């Protein structure tokens, strides 16, 4: 390993831009609390892509992703009146997502079936076909590797590595301590690297 310039410590990854300001979302939440249907529709429109992508990362390629999106918004609608603004709305939303994902992961585990079997290509090709093809291939590999992880470790890993959240925020989302999150993340990383290496070996060998 060649020596490299000393990096600056970066403890908290930068979250991906959601495109929506927190203030706008909080205004919508206030309106939803007053039973404003239009506000909920707007909130849905603003957050649905983010929710879909997050759920997709959390559970992988599933035939019931639409059901999960519906379930997420149903839970959100029920939970919004209890949202007191003590955390960011984004954190609140991801907490709902993780609960829905956890339920789904456990359900599939109980069924002992392959949830991704015989599914059509589920990934949006986007505008750049080459980049999209790479993304699709990588996504398939990553999700297969993620299947080897336990549900809780998987959620922490996905939120950190794919959604770009820091351990503090993840701790709030999953309702665990900071150290628990760090520990889950550490073990998830080890298991994921091993699983992915095994998968790439299998794919390379004839």
């Amino acid at each position, binding site marked *: 390993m060649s020596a490299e310039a000393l990096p600056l410590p970066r403890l908290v990854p930068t979250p991906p831009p959601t495109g929506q300001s927190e203030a706008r979302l909080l205004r919508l939440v206030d309106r939803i609390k007053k039973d404003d*249907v239009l506000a909920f*529709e707007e909130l849905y429109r603003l957050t649905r892509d983010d929710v879909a992508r997050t759920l997709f990362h959390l559970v992988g390629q599933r*035939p019931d992703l639409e059901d999960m999106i519906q379930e997420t918004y149903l839970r959100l*609608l029920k939970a919004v009146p209890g949202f007191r603004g003590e955390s960011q709305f984004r954190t609140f939303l991801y907490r709902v997502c993780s609960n829905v994902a956890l339920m789904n992961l456990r359900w599939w585990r109980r069924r002992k079936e392959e949830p991704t079997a015989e599914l059509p290509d589920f990934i*949006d090709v986007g505008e750049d076909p080459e980049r999209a093809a790479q993304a699709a291939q990588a996504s398939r590999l990553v999700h297969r590797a993620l299947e080897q992880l336990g549900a809780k470790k998987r959620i922490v890993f996905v939120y950190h590595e794919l959604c770009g959240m820091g351990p503090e925020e993840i701790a709030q989302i999953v309702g665990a301590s900071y150290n628990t999150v760090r520990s889950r993340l550490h073990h998830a990383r080890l298991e994921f690297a091993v699983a*992915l290496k095994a998968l*790439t070996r299998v794919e390379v060998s004839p």
Partner: protein
Amino acid sequence: MISHDMQLWAFASKELELGEHRFIQSHLDDCPECVEQLAAIQIAKEALEFARDAKPKLAWARTDERVGAMVEKRLAQQARRPMFVRLGFVGGFAVAAAVALFVFTRPPPAVDLTPPVESPPEAWARVDRAEGLSLVNGGGEIVDGTELRGGDVLRTSLIGRAFVHLPDLSHVRVGGGSQVTLTRSQADDVALTLERGSVAVRASHQARKGFVVHTGGVSVFVVGTVFGVANDAEVVEVSVTEGKVRVELPNGDSSFVEPGQRLRFDTRTQKSKRLKVTAAGERELREVAAVADATASVEGRALVPAAGGTPSSPPMLPAQGTPRTLPRISPAEARARQVTAPEPIAPDELAALPKIVSEQPKTEVIVEAPADVWPSLGGGEVIRGVPPRREAEIAPASAPTEWASAPTAAPQEDEWAALPVKSVAKLNEEEAPVAPARTSKPLATDLEAIFMQRADDALTRGECDRFLLGLEDIAQDGQRSTRSEFARVLRARCFDSQLRPRQAMNEYRKYVDEYPKGQYLAEARHALGQ
């Protein structure tokens, strides 16, 4: 792979403090296993980097519909008062009763002769010339004459369309492949929310609080005009042929759209552009204007003012009664109807179309309008109308005379019951006998059996999706226990076959709750893992 339990991933991500980073870097010089492990981590990170960009391909239109319907349902449930509120009312009533007891035991005070102020009647919108129209929150296809209320969600098939006459005397044409919510539907306040598709509006010149169409973050405010709004998920278009509308964009900008103009707003780039109204748009707007004119001439004769109105702006009620209960039809029945592609109606043809009143059922009741209801109708003047249809009141064809007593005993939930109704026996003495009310109840029951058979067949072919709504209707009917029991199981099996586990579990759970001794209990318990 040998693991030294080093924080190699954190090292590769440059997350470590300086001391830890240096320590691992020096360790890597002496540990080939760790170097190998680090290489695997870097491959994994690269894969994650690519996977981060991947997004699922979803049928958003279907998902939007499902979430929209779910929200409507949830809000409708919320509208019902919770138990503690009801208990509060009971407590309040008890206190009021105690106070009343105290008051009535005292000498009676001077009687207040001021007449009670009557609340204005709830205004209804009506459907006209419907083709391929369904009510999302009502769960079935709806037909001409159906009355709608605020909160109803209308959906047209791709080849369908419908006209809706609003209580403020405005008219709306709902285009094919559209979904629109009547957010507010009052005589002085109308709000529509266009989820997708298009609407053409002929707004009346009546004074009101507001008339607004919301769509894709855009709000269109109007006073007396003909305009159209279209939303195809990425682009919202507002076209105007008469009058003027104010368009409020999501970024807060507001601008007016003049006649002949079409404002095109791209919801992705958030940019707007002014263009000319297209020929197709103009045709739709001409169509709604023509239907509005044709309907106005009919309504001028057919509407009578309701109690609570004033001579200058009376709340209008249809003289010919229209169904209060939404005339739903089962999916099997709906499929039996051949919905044909609508052809554009030329304005001169519209006037010749059958008028709304002539499309109503032939059964009539005759009511006497008391003199104090409306000055222009003298006491005892006779108004003809169709009795309101309620499922509980639908009588078999062999017993038409039930109408003679049913309306007077009906709950006071509509205007018909408020007016004295002559008995059919009396009518028979005065006029020719009224044709017996036709009911579709026996037919509907047969259709249900056929429908369930077809649903069962479709399940074996894995095509049961379209039967789900109808099965839910049957499953909710607790009186026909065997059939509703089987409908519940069919729904569960259908969800299971579609790999929709949450719904399947829900259905089985409902089954266990509803039929603790049911014949499919073993199946349900097995599915629930009990």
